[in-house]
């Protein structure tokens, strides 16, 4: 076993250890805390590079390092383990690199926060759990890390816990994802019970998922398990209808949004589907569900983003939408395409979020794009990097998003079947969603960077320091370069990740889809540019879309009222049910039955007391008085006077004499 496989766990352990150490540091020790956390993360990143090198050098065979967690029953074990294969190597690079950059960015961003020490502790906890998630060779260990990333997300969303909105958002995020996790948990139980293991690859490198595919589980069981596991993925990756927590999660500090709620954690759901892909493939219906949920989410969230004002919320809905694209990619059968988009998206979305962090930091924590404007002149670097991120996200030719989105659309095109037109839906939704994406990103860029400053913060804005611009630079470079890993025709990424799968040929169809979608994106950018220019960008102007379509705009602005719908149905029902159960407990179970029966006992005891008084006591008293009378007679005999006793004694002697005389002569 190569040393890197044997010590793979170190990659996850180092950030955990850093989190543990910083947990004991006091508030003023922010610099040591940052140093420890960044140091640990750098080593993890270097180890991840070694892991990648190992995979590149020695091929694609999964390499595992398994161990017994505990033993039970008759020689039964719960086994966990770590796994190095192309997928985990890729995720290791994404997670450790973005984490490292975000940590460095945070040094500048959290400069003035009194709790910065704790912030680094939580970030490191997150990084450790996320790294453990991607290298786990066991569904159970994956679930455990999965819950831990949920915890760190909870802690970081609520980092500014004194804000009521943050306190509400952290709770919402944990609970909504946990709804999905219940499905995931049951899926694991079922999978475990069905196959007898949670390992992806056993010690002899046999894939349990492939075995499951071969028929250990029936096709319908495999479908059920896949869908249950997909529930978990939907919760984590913000797929409709469990997407509601992700936009609210923007209450956390911006580096958190970049790392957790854009680049890594929310992609864990996509990763999970990718990891469980062999199981999903057993029954095609599972993949169809993934495709349709993904496509719907992609379009649904993209439309909402058009009508938002908060710079981070726009990006949040954009994230939901892009996650939908990834899911759609996996669902339409493009295993590599979905994960390739995950890979590129991680960098350009982290770039956008960190860029927005730089903007927010410069504007004194102003997040409303209506109060920004004109930042292009004041923040040159941020503008350039943000622009690159935007172009990558919109799918502008030759930027990273262009290649990955093109892969997705090509996959979606090949998804169509002769039997039903419905199989065109992912492709059509994907295309419309791409247009919306280009439109809302142009809108945002225009509002933020062009026109005149419309707010106090924007007027005094200035470029951020090097600890913040350096990560932006690295991410911007990656947002341009990573796309070329998937250059059509010579698809390096495809050979790396899915050597056994067939890539779609780069033929005329592919070229025309690429061409067509590019035209569409350019038109959307152009129209966005035209709509949001001139007087629209002056202070107090209404959004031209709002002026033109007020009703539709309001619906979009209120996110299709999904939150309100949940509040009125699920939440209200659960609360009412809970109150009902509590009242039932107090008044029926405890009141009626317990106290009722004790009342019955009490009444019975009253009755029996009456019985005692009248019947039993009556008889007893009579007996007593008879005895007293008898005692009265006795008292006359025993009155304590010696002359009286002598009198009686002499009387007795005389009596005895008489008797003796009478009987003695016989």
């Amino acid at each position, binding site marked *: 076993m190569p040393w890197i496989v044997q010590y793979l766990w170190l990659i996850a352990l180092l950030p955990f250890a850093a989190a543990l150490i910083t*947990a004991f540091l006091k508030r003023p020790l922010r610099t040591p805390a940052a140093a420890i956390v960044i140091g640990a993360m750098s080593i993890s990143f270097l180890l991840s590079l070694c892991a990648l090198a190992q995979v590149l050098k020695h091929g694609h065979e999964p390499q595992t390092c398994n161990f*017994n*967690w*505990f*033993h*039970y*029953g*008759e020689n*039964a074990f719960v086994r966990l383990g770590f796994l190095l294969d192309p997928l985990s190597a890729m995720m290791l690079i994404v997670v450790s690199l973005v984490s490292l950059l975000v940590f460095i960015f945070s040094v500048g961003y959290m400069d003035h926060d009194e709790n910065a020490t704790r912030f680094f502790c939580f970030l490191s906890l997150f990084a450790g759990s996320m790294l453990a998630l991607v290298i786990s060779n066991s569904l*159970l260990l994956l*679930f*455990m*890390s999965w*819950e*831990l990333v949920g*915890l760190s997300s909870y802690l970081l969303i*609520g980092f500014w*816990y*004194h*804000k*009521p909105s*943050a*306190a*509400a958002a*952290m*709770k919402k995020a*944990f*609970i909504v994802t*946990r*709804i999905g996790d*219940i499905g995931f*948990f*049951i899926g694991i*139980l*079922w999978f*475990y*019970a069905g196959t007898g293991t949670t390992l992806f690859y056993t010690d002899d490198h046999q894939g349990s998922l492939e075995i499951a595919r071969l028929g250990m589980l029936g096709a319908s069981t495999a479908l059920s398990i896949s869908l249950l596991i997909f529930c978990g993925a939907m919760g984590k990756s913000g797929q409709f209808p469990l997407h509601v927590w992700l936009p609210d999660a923007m209450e956390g500090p911006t580096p958190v949004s970049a790392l957790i709620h854009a680049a890594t954690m929310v992609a864990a759901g996509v990763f999970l589907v990718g990891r469980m892909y062999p199981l999903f493939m057993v029954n095609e219906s599972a993949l169809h569900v993934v495709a349709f949920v993904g496509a719907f989410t992609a379009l649904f969230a993209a439309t909402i983003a058009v009508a938002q004002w908060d710079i981070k919320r726009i990006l949040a809905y954009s994230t939901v939408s892009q996650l939908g694209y990834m899911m759609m990619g996996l669902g339409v059968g493009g295993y590599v395409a979905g994960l390739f988009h995950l890979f590129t998206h991680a960098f350009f979305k982290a770039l956008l979020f960190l860029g927005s962090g730089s903007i927010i930091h410069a504007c004194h924590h102003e997040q409303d794009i209506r109060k920004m404007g004109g930042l292009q002149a004041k923040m040159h670097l941020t503008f350039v990097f943000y622009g690159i991120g935007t172009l990558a996200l919109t799918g502008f030719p030759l930027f990273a998003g262009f290649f990955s989105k093109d892969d997705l659309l090509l996959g979606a095109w090949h998804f169509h079947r002769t039997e039903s037109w419905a199989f065109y839906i992912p492709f059509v939704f994907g295309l419309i969603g791409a247009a919306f994406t280009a439109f809302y990103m142009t809108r945002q860029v225009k509002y933020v960077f062009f026109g005149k400053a419309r707010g106090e913060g924007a007027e005094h804005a200035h470029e951020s320091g090097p600890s913040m611009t350096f990560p932006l630079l690295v991410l911007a470079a990656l947002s341009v370069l990573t796309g070329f890993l998937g250059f059509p025709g010579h698809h390096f990424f495809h050979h790396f990740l899915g050597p056994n799968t067939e890539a779609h040929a780069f033929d005329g169809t592919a070229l025309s889809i690429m061409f067509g979608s590019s035209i569409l994106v350019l038109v959307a950018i152009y129209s966005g540019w035209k709509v949001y220019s001139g007087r629209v960008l002056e202070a107090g102007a209404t959004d031209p879309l709002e002026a033109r379509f007020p009703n539709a705009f309001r619906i979009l602005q209120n996110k299709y009222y999904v939150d309100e719908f949940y509040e009125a149905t699920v939440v209200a029902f*659960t*609360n009412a*049910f*809970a*109150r009902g*159960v*509590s009242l039932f*407990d*107090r008044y029926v*179970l*405890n009141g009626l*039955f*317990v106290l009722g029966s*004790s009342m019955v006992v009490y009444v019975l005891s009253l009755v029996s007391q009456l019985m005692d008084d009248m019947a039993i006591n009556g008889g007893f008293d009579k007996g007593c008085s008879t005895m007293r009378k008898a005692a009265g007679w006795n008292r006359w005999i025993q009155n304590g006077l010696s002359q009286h006793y002598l009198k009686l004694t002499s009387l007795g002697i005389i009596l005895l004499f008489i008797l003796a005389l009478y009987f003695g002569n016989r």
Partner: protein
Amino acid sequence: MNPILEYLRNDIITPMTFLPCIGALLLLFLHRSDVRSIRLLAFFASLSPLLPLMRMIQKYDSSISSIQFSFKAAWIPSFHVDYFVGVDGLSIAMVLLVSIITPLTILGSFRSIGAPEPSKAGCKTFYTLILLEQTGLYGAFTALNFFHWFIFWEMSLVPMFFLIKLFGNEDRTHAAYQFFIYTFVGSVAMVIGMQFIYLATDSWDFIDLAKMALPTDGVHSVLSSKIENLAGSIGVPFLMNHAVTLVFLLVFAGFAVKVPLWPFHTWLPVTYTQAPTAGSMLLTGLMSKMGVYGFLRVILPLFSPSIAAHATTLLFLAVATIVFGALAAMAQRDLKTLVAYSSVSHLGYCMLGVFAVASVTGNVNDKALALNGVILQMFAHGLSAAGLFYFVGLIEQRAQTRALADLGGLRKTVPVMCGLMGVTLFTSLGLPGLAGFVGEFMIFRGAFPLQIGFTCVAAIGILLAALYLLRMMKGIFFGPQDDKWNAMPDLSMRERLVSGVLVALMFVVGIAPGYLISLSNSAVLELAKIYRLVA
């Protein structure tokens, strides 16, 4: 050899059981105003059983399923009553838990012993009661002859009654009586049931009875035929036909009230809320385990056919305990009542495991996993629930309120408490890496192949737990903070020690549960094997 040494070689358990009791006697010699010495003596007296316990752990052989360290002496020979103690995999974790939680409870209540805080004079009574309670608990977890066991079972009620009655909150008298009488009614039912068994078999011995109860053909056993014979001699047809079931129901009632199983749980929220902090910690951390332990020690071995025959009903009750307990917790405004209901819900998982194992024939390993999980869950819940009550007590002591609505934003002023209580809450919530998850996972994983439907419904409880526990976390620590809490002191060193030990154990059990599982596995496997033949 010295006869005392000779005796100590044979019997570790009796000294362990009575050491706290001796400590309580020694307390009598201290003057009641000497509070400092009283506290220290009480603490070390409750800690002293750790010495024999450590020897026991060291010598314990986890590969044996039978009773170890047993000590048996005839007590009342004409009634077949023996003094009979011993531990096996079912009880050793509980003995361990008693030895951990009780000293921490005493240490935790050094400063404040109860809500009305009667003059310091109350101290002596207070610690005496806790030490007596500890002896009662050791006895209840180690005695193996019904008569002997029952004395301790009831003995643990008495100190608790007085703890609540003398040191409890506003409504303490009502709570103390309801607690005592409700559980006592259950005990009476159990005694009647066990009397019947004794009359039929001439034995009080749990181990003997378990051997008699080994099913010969799925439904019948020596025990059941003896019970039927005795019932037959009475001559009432109804009794004859249902004798085994009736005896089962009587014994079941005693344990069901104690656990408690829905709908016999209503004494619990009242009692836990009104008890002083130390009382709640002992009640939830240790006494609630007596009921589950009773199911493992008595119900599962003795009544295998009956429990299998009523499995659907029982599983329904277990799931109702989980779900309704959690829902009721969601609706509470009083912190203590909330934690009390969460305790109900969490013990429901144990019952789910027990009943699922008994309900169908299935893989022995699945069953062993579920039962191991039950014991681990008891241990984990003992740590987390006692911890939660401790923290709620600390908050109450500082804020003079238990209402969730009055608190908020406390993380700012008491960050250490927030961190430690946060870990405890997440243990209770079943977060991986902490003790609660392992128990829940094992129970669910073991029960799933046996009872898919019930297990899936029970999983709702996991979600509901997140709802009420996070609501609690948010209500206490997050959101804007009222200025009146600005001067609230954070945890003192002593308080950090108490909660730190609990939290450390939660991590240890959560990350490396293997040792605890190995303690219980052999005995549990034996128990699981009984159910190969039933149903």
